[in-house]
């Protein structure tokens, strides 16, 4: 916040002078005053800069609010439309929370930041003046040169964590801690939850059955813990030997007595969280350490007994905005992590592995194929420094027998083919499954799920490893809602199933798995709206599936919405943070306005077994258990248990805010518990219902962890 003040103070008042200096013809005076623009500067810093940056350049999915990109998006629209837009949608996660005058002032500031000249008439929200008639997109130098702000690098914004003391705020002294061995990770004890998705295969299944379909209705709250305010929260606890390790927001790591909720140690590593890109989805435990890849792309190993930092290592060059959200796995003595927010800069994104004892980098696999390397010819001559995407924002899985780690990658960037100028080229290794040797990072095989993908439809999510007799398969589902089955030894395509309505692809070659686009997608142009079902919220998004082996059922949280997408003309040079485009949302045809769907598929046959729909989307992963009960939470604050084999709802509880994260099960002293978090933020799966479900309300705070169990005395 101090930085914003330093660089932006008086910026609005400097604009008239800047116009005089340029000698350009001045557009008409704008319908706002200099005083409004100055007040808007302050309000922008407090409410907007964390995502859109102090220089209004935008970042990632947060669009630019100044310069050519802004003018391309908004030049033909009016000041009133801009005002209506931010009033309806902003601040992110707190839409409509500011008063009308503040939105008017922010509108004035944004216009002034695009070269509009203040006038004598105050903007009251009703003046509909074409933005290109008053603004040029020329950003005053005081604003353009403002320090890249927000996110983890300073600046304020909605959802930013309140100030707090960083460091080891409670020193632990856990006695009788049992180191986690490789054997424990390969064959986890059902009482523990040692790995992000429960086991290396990402089944998100518990072998516990004390809580079952007959008694789940008696679940009651045992303890809870209020998590940090600010930032996104989509995490899940890790449990070992009755100790819960939690990746709280603002890169805070905590250890609790999992039975009582007593805090055992706490280390606030920082940096403090903003709402954008700050959801840590997991941590990892191995031997006597807890591992966390912090949002500033730094990998830490903490002493599991005390919380003390044992070592730390940079995953990516510090201070460049690289980011981590997906959590990590530890396999064969190495902590393996992905990387995100590699847009507009080098190096490209990569997956990397670190010696679990020392933090020394062991290997790195770059997920963007460079010219002259294998796959480098799949970018239609796009220069290397313009090849972007392939982010890895969900931790991978691991087959100990094959010693292969499996990772999904996100789409190439910019989102749309027309913007990135790559046509239908497959842009390796975006939207692919990668099979990497866990010891060397060597690529064993890859499978490109969506060559030429163009609607921000990631295929980055969990890779679930399932054996059908002797056949070792890998199953995954991405935003397009297509459930894929591959041979995980060879990468050969085996099968695919559509799980939600989609209109992006009009066919698939069932021998190769190659998708064919709807014809009008192939002739897309920039600055033209084009339809995509599902929207960028999926289909299926980050809330992971669960696999119940005994019933051979994969239970999948699905999201039903569509969008119109418009791709920008993106500047073709490095160093430019490039908001890729715009979108308009609408309800998916044939769904009666229901955004949420939970569905179960038999994985051997890909046969759909059951599904149900509801108005609100599911924002947690699914946890299935040996008690024939599966747990899942949603945007409307409902945490529920369903019968795994039928989908019938058996139990619900309404929590204080959005139920978001990853449910887990564990046992202490012979008693089974189920834990879940509430959380805010989380990208498209959270923002789409925020925009579309006006009747669904939730507080914009209340992140916490909740632990449920059966009563000590059963009815």
């Amino acid at each position: 916040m101090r930085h914003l003040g330093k660089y932006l103070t008086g910026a609005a008042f400097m604009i008239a002078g800047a116009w005089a200096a340029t000698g350009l013809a001045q557009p008409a005076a704008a319908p706002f005053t200099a005083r409004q623009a100055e007040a808007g500067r302050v309000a922008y810093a407090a409410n907007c800069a964390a995502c859109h940056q102090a220089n209004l350049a935008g970042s990632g999915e947060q669009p630019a609010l100044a310069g050519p990109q802004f003018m391309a998006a908004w030049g033909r629209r009016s000041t009133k439309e801009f005002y209506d837009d931010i009033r309806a949608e902003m601040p992110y996660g707190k839409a409509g929370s500011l008063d009308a005058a503040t939105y008017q002032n922010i509108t004035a500031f944004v216009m002034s930041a695009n070269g509009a000249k203040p006038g004598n008439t105050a903007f009251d929200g009703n003046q509909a003046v074409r933005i290109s008639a008053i603004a040029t997109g020329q950003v005053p130098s005081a604003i353009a040169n403002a320090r890249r702000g927000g996110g983890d690098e300073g600046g304020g914004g909605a959802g930013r964590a309140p100030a707090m003391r960083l460091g080891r705020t409670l020193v632990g002294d856990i006695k009788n801690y049992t180191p986690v061995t490789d054997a424990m990770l390969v064959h986890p004890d059902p009482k523990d939850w040692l790995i992000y998705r429960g086991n290396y295969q990402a089944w998100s299944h518990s072998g516990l059955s004390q809580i079952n379909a007959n008694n789940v209705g008696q679940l009651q709250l045992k303890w809870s813990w209020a998590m940090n305010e600010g930032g996104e929260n989509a995490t899940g606890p890790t449990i070992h030997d009755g100790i819960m390790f939690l990746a709280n927001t603002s890169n805070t790591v905590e250890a609790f007595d999992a039975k009582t909720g007593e805090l055992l140690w706490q280390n606030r590593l920082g940096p403090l969280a903003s709402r954008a890109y700050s959801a840590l989805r997991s941590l990892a435990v191995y031997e006597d350490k807890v591992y966390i890849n912090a949002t500033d792309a730094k990998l830490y190993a903490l002493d599991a007994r005390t919380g003390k930092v044992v070592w730390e290592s940079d995953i990516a060059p510090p201070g460049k905005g690289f980011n981590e959200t997906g959590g990590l796995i530890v396999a064969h003595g190495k902590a393996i992590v992905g990387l995100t927010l590699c847009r507009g800069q080098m190096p490209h994104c990569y997956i990397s592995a670190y010696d679990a004892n020392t933090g020394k980098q062991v290997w790195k696999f770059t997920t963007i194929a460079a010219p002259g390397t294998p796959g480098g010819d799949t970018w239609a001559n796009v220069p290397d420094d313009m090849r972007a995407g392939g982010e890895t924002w969900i931790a991978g899985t691991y087959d100990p027998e094959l010693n292969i780690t499996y990772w999904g990658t996100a789409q190439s960037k910019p989102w749309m083919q027309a913007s990135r100028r790559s046509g239908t080229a497959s842009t390796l290794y975006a939207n692919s499954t990668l099979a990497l040797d866990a010891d060397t990072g060597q690529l064993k095989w890859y499978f490109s799920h969506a060559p030429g993908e163009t609607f921000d439809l990631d295929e980055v999510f969990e890779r679930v490893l399932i054996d059908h007799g002797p056949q070792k398969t890998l199953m995954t589902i991405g935003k397009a809602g297509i459930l894929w089955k591959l041979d995980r030894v060879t990468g050969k395509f085996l099968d695919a199933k559509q799980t939600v309505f989609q209109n992006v692809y009009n066919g698939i070659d069932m021998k190769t798995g190659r998708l064919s686009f709807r014809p009008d997608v192939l002739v897309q142009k920039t600055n033209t709206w084009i339809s995509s079902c599902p929207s960028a919220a999926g289909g299926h998004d980050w809330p992971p599936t669960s696999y119940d082996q005994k019933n051979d059922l994969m239970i999948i949280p699905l999201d039903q919405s569509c969008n119109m997408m418009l791709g920008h003309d993106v500047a073709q040079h490095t160093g430019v943070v490039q908001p890729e485009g715009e979108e308009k949302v609408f309800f998916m045809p044939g769904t009666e306005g229901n955004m949420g769907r939970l569905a179960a598929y038999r994985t051997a046959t890909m046969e759909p077994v059951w599904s149900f729909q509801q108005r609100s989307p599911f924002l947690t992963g699914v946890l299935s258990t040996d008690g024939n009960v599966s747990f899942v939470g949603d945007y409307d604050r409902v945490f529920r248990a369903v019968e795994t084999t039928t989908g019938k709802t058996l139990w619900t509880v309404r929590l204080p805010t959005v139920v978001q994260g990853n449910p887990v099960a564990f046992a202490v002293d012979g008693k089974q518990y189920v834990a879940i978090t509430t959380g805010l933020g989380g990208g498209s799966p959270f923002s789409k219902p925020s925009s579309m479900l006006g009747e669904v309300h939730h507080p914009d705070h209340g992140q916490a962890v909740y632990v449920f169990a059966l009563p000590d005395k059963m009815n």
Partner: protein
Amino acid sequence: MHAIRTVLAVFLLGGFSGVASAAEVYASRLTSVAYDGAMRANVQGDGHVSAALNGSSLTVTGDFTALPSAASSVKLYSGPGIGVPGDAILDLQLSGQNQGSISGTVKLSSKQLTALRQGHVYVQLNSQKAPDGNLWGWLLPEHAFPGADVPEKGHGLLPQLDVPGNWTEKR
């Protein structure tokens, strides 16, 4: 309900080819057109339409409510896919302002019939503050919605009418 299932069975088994002997029934909930924050306040509302096809004659009935501004026109549109906007093809009639009803009988060309049976035809209601679209809904085979949270066997999806091989079905 029985009639609905019968109609669905005709569609599913017949693959939507040829002219059915009985009326084919289509329906849609009308929901907001694609919008961003700037449009949001003007594209609210709710509605429902059903359409019966006899030969090439399509009779549409429906209702709408809670529009932010008075309805101005209602038309059938056809695009290149389900959920893909296209051009207006035929006019329908409306009565009422912020709430009201939709009606009309139109003759479809063979091309329009094909589009309807592929799910590419939709109803769009325009209003004074949203002249380029307030509510829309794609005409798909009328189907029973079992209710929120009520599981149904199978995938529970409408058939993907325009995808060769009926990708959603068990092969």
